């Protein structure tokens, strides 16, 4: 089966996020005064062939932990869904 995978990466709590901080600092100039806690991450999408969803999630999580993120400074959410047939 073909699965669609979305990996959303972010910096771990406590890891400085200068991009997020800079975005947050600039918001009041546009009148947005109630926004806090801006964090910048990445989203990666790919398709994965696997026999079932459990295996797909396990493989996607493995590649995320071993390659797509650096666990010292980053964390990630991995989600898997059955790819829509074209």
């Amino acid at each position, binding site marked *: 089966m073909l699965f669609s995978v979305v990996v959303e990466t972010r*910096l771990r709590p406590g*890891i*400085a*996020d*200068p*991009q997020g*901080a*800079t975005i947050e600092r600039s918001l009041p100039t546009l009148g947005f005064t109630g926004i806090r806690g801006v964090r910048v991450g990445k989203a990666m999408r790919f398709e994965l062939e696997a026999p079932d969803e459990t295996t797909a999630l396990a493989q996607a999580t493995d590649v995320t932990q071993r*390659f*797509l993120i*650096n666990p*010292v*400074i980053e964390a990630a959410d991995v989600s898997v869904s059955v790819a829509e047939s074209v």
Partner: protein
Amino acid sequence: MAARVGVILFPGSNCELDALEAIGHIGGTAELVWHGDRSVEGCDALVVPGGFAHGDYLRPGAIARFSPVMDAVRNFAAEGGPVVGICNGFQVLTEAGLLPGALQKNAGLKFLCTTITVRVETTTTALTSQATQGDELRIPINHFEGNYTCDANTLAQLRDEDRVVVRYVDNPNGSVDNIAGVCNEGRNVVGLMPHPERACHRLLGSEDGAVLLRSLLASAGTRVG
């Protein structure tokens, strides 16, 4: 015979010629080793130079660890061969698991291109054997992701085992505990953000980096494998 230093060249490296020039200037012999090579045979020491290996895609150093030469670098390090990663090379060595911790973006979101002062904290490493503990060296930095970080246990271990090699006198990038460079357990693999190869001649404004590269030459040929 002069020690032969292999300088690993990745696509996107840009400090490899500085390293060659500096090592030659202090009396060593250096040659480039292409990242696609599977061997570092004939090298007595290795430098992983600065730059943007593989375009820093994904993360600095993240793709470089898959380069064919890295298995040879790992074996060379495991046999006790001296390996120094400078700037991007430091990032490559952390991503490859040869050094602990990681380099995150500088506090302040600025690319830093300036000369800073580091203090030599230990002289029992491949990069500092010819220096004196407490030496303060003026060496340039050029980086965006130079803010060293690691978990609390790793930091405690680095301190307990005297593995912080150089510290910033005036922390420019937010690095935890002012760390500018660390070494592995065997003390033969060292990574640092400052560029000693750019501080080896008075015409460059500082010769303070030469003592570090001389240390690397001195430790070359000490492999036990």
